[in-house]
């Protein structure tokens, strides 16, 4: 019988029940591969519930460094009776199915194209442990131990991981290592030659880290000097603020007096969260909030205020599957329009689209710089896939020389020495951005009234048509300035001659790059561009101009980024072909290739069909 054989290139999936402690065991597994120097991409597929429902953990191992989702399962670790049949079916022919054989498999589990690996997890636990909680927890560690043997992962790597994990709770180390050994030994005894999937040590992860995007965003905010966070819990954004708090407590507590150089307030809802951000930013602090789709909808009114009254503020939108409550624990890139054009009236907002935790970190810093310089809100659009999963990327970097650019803020001295009459909304530099003042700066100069109603250059209330139009036109000028300041795209030219280009952003990036490689292997050269920001910079426009056929790869139904491109750059929509995946699971390279090749070959696309990505 065929056996899938591969070194450092396979997908293993764990089927568990949430709330049973599998998460930390599975994380340890992924990290063991990372520490073996082999690129790895774990993805959590979890329910919108707390305990007792099916949850999966899908780990892709790729020596070539492909970090997108691959699809297909080579090795299944099936510990959840509720989904066992479905998990059983999902294994690719020639693949492996690890299960708890304390009870024999029911006869309906019949496939002769896959390899069964039975480990009596329950029996071992009953034998070894008396405490029921321990019996449950160590089951997970035992299968990880078995995998160490089966996949040839150095046992020492696990030993070290256990040590790191239980730093401070040392007495847990020995039992965990013991449990690993139980699994290892059992596998060795009964499945010595079974598995042809192997991990071999490499040194491919130099300078890399394995971390979730939300942590990257949070650290970026810390390094950017954000001091105020107002927020409201919502999956998958909650861990942005959790991480911010965690690191603030480590890094921002004044050693002299134990007091906090930060303030985090759990608001009563998202409207309040955004209000806090605007109040704090108006008052000269760097402030942010994090939310997901429903929160963005609720913040629309405040975002319009910030646009029109020109108040900074950073909003992190960790997107999930919409509309409405949708699938709160599934991923999507579907708040693109809601963010870019949030609020009534003529409004548009600067958006950043990070693709990995490093970009989360960098763009989080960027966001604070931009929002203060441009005096307009900046929205970071991450998503569940990036935010809540560990993603491999370059280590975070910080240049100690860089100073914060707080934008056009008048100091006490500058106010004192003002020669001309100051106007909050006067466009002194021709950039469309006025000079602002922070309350309390000067006893007699620089006070003004901030309002969402129409105002003139001196911040006075006005119902003058002319004054209104002037300010709306200046906001357009500011928008043009923004185009020159936001991060430029990442361009990849496979072939200068090629007239086919692919545009992608955020978590479609890794899969898109892999797809470009795959197509190149078939001698189809596709150039690539990763959008990093809205509004689009000149480079985006130029790239589109240089290619006849452009694919826009995104994870939503309506081709929202395409809409932005068409609308903002006044492009013929016929020039852009959408490649859309919106089923809540991260997009795969195979799917992209299928879609693009279908178009190239037949010059015909069926973008709204859902592909089989087995």
């Amino acid at each position: 019988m065929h056996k899938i054989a591969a070194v450092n290139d396979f997908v293993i999936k764990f089927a568990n029940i949430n709330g049973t402690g599998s998460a930390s065991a599975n994380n340890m597994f992924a990290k063991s591969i990372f520490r073996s120097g082999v690129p790895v991409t774990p993805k959590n597929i979890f329910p919108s519930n707390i305990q007792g429902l099916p949850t999966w953990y899908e780990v892709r191992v790729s020596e070539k460094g492909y970090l997108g989702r691959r699809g297909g399962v080579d090795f299944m670790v099936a510990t959840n009776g509720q989904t066992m049949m479905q998990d059983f079916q999902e294994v690719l022919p020639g693949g492996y199915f690890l299960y708890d054989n304390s009870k024999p498999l029911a006869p309906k589990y019949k496939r002769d194209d896959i390899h069964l690996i039975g480990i009596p997890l329950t029996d071992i636990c009953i034998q070894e442990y008396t405490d029921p909680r321990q019996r449950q927890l160590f089951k997970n560690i035992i299968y990880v131990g078995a995998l160490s043997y089966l996949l040839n992962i150095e046992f020492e790597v696990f030993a070290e991981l256990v040590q790191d994990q239980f730093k401070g709770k040392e007495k847990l180390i020995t039992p965990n290592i013991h449990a690993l050994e139980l699994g290892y030994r059992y596998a060795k005894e009964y499945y010595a030659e079974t598995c042809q999937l192997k991990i071999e040590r490499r040194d491919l992860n130099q300078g890399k880290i394995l971390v979730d995007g939300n942590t990257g965003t949070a650290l970026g905010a810390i390094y950017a000097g954000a001091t105020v966070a107002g927020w409201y819990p919502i999956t998958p954004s909650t861990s942005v603020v959790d991480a911010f708090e965690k690191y603030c407590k480590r890094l921002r507590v004044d050693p002299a007096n134990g007091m906090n150089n930060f303030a985090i307030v759990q608001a009563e809802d998202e409207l309040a969260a955004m209000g806090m951000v605007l109040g704090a930013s108006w008052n000269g602090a760097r402030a942010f909030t994090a939310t997901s789709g429903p929160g963005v909808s609720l913040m629309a009114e405040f975002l319009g205020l910030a646009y029109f009254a020109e108040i900074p503020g950073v909003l992190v939108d960790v997107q999930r599957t919409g509309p409405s409550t949708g699938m709160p624990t599934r991923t999507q890139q579907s708040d693109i329009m809601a963010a870019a054009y949030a609020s009534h009236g003529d409004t548009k907002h600067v958006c950043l689209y990070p693709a990995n935790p490093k970009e989360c970190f960098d763009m989080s810093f960027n966001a604070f710089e931009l929002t203060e310089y441009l005096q307009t809100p900046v929205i970071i659009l991450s998503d569940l896939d990036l935010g809540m999963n560990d993603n491999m990327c370059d280590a975070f970097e910080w240049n100690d020389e860089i100073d914060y650019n707080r934008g056009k803020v008048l100091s006490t001295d500058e106010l004192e020495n003002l020669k001309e009459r100051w106007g909050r909304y006067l466009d002194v530099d021709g950039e469309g951005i006025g000079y602002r003042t922070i309350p309390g700066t000067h006893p007699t100069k620089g006070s003004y009234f901030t309002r969402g109603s129409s105002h003139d250059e001196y911040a006075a209330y006005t119902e003058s048509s002319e004054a209104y139009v002037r300010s709306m036109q200046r906001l357009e000028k500011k928008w043009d300035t923004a185009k020159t300041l936001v991060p430029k795209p990442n361009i990849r030219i496979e072939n200068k001659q090629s007239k086919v280009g692919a545009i992608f952003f955020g978590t479609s990036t890794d899969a898109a790059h892999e797809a470009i490689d795959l197509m190149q292997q078939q001698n189809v050269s596709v150039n690539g561009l990763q959008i990093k920001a809205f509004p689009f910079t000149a480079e985006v426009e130029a790239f589109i101009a240089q290619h006849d056929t452009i694919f826009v790869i995104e994870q939503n139904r309506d081709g929202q980024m395409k809409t932005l491109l068409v609308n903002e750059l006044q492009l013929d929509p016929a020039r852009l072909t959408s490649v859309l995946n919106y089923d809540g699971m991260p997009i795969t390279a195979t799917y992209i290739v299928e879609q693009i090749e279908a178009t190239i070959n037949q010059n015909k696309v069926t973008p709204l069909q859902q592909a089989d990505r087995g």
Partner: protein
Amino acid sequence: MSFIRPNIRHPQLAVNDLGYTRANYEGALSTLCAGCGHDSISAAILQSCFELSIEPHKVAKMSGIGCSSKTPAYFLGNSHGFNSVHGRMPSVATGANLANRDLVYIGVSGDGDTASIGMGQFAHVVRRNLNMVYIVMNNGCYGLTKGQDSATADRGSASKKGIPNPYSSIDLCETAIQLGAGFVARSFSGDKEQLIPLIKAAVSHRGFALIDVVSPCVTFNNTANSTKSYDHVREHMNATGTFDFVPLKEEITTEYEPGQTEEITLHDGSAVRLHKATESLDFSSRRSAMNEIEKHKEKGEVLTGLLYLNPQTPDTHELLGTTTTPLNQLDKDKLCPGSKTLDAINDSFR
């Protein structure tokens, strides 16, 4: 249009301890209706800040949307103001305060702004005990949108439209007391004598201070059947007592009739001296305050004056343990952990 500026300007205008005249605390011309209660409250705020010798630029004026919320443009023109969106001033004030704990935050709102669309934010800013003065210019109606009943309109009260309000009304003072505010008072726009010392004490109080000021809307809700009309309030107002605000520097000589006069020292060292009209009210007891308010309501009376005072409640910053330097004044050195630390953090992700 009414004017809250004084009409006469002497060359020898009174100056306060900072050397400022009242003019330094004035704002733009009011565009409210002549006789609107709100203008009197603006004048009282102006007068209080002048007399307290607060530096105007150390005050931030926050508001929502409504006739009432426009007023911050009409006083303290040398202070920054923020006219935000309808009902959401509390969150904006919270953010502002988090960023700089050293300013005086004066929030002005309407009853629609606070008790309808803003009810949630109001409840939550109270329970966080944000250090601010929150003044509700309470006219029982939506002035700016032409007189609809608000949630503070008493059941049975009728505005210009003539239809008695069928719903139960929200008593913002009771709500605030229940949710833990340390300073709660009710007043009347027509009673400057009471209002000014209350505002001064509220500014001096550290933590959330609510003053719910009945402020008749002459255009839409000053009718014979309205319980928020000038006449009604004047006739049914019953004060908890008279009230002096004693600034820190004045020597506090304790000489009052026992039982009826009480003196409470505020966080900043100033004090309020209360000459109680009723012995049954214990200013330090939430239960007593709520009881007293309800008792008067049952009699059809509006209990005004200080209702509850606890000068010792920790404000949001104390609850959060925020550092004493305003957060907006911390520089990169204090805030940015630097590249070395980042290296260590990176290692934890390996």
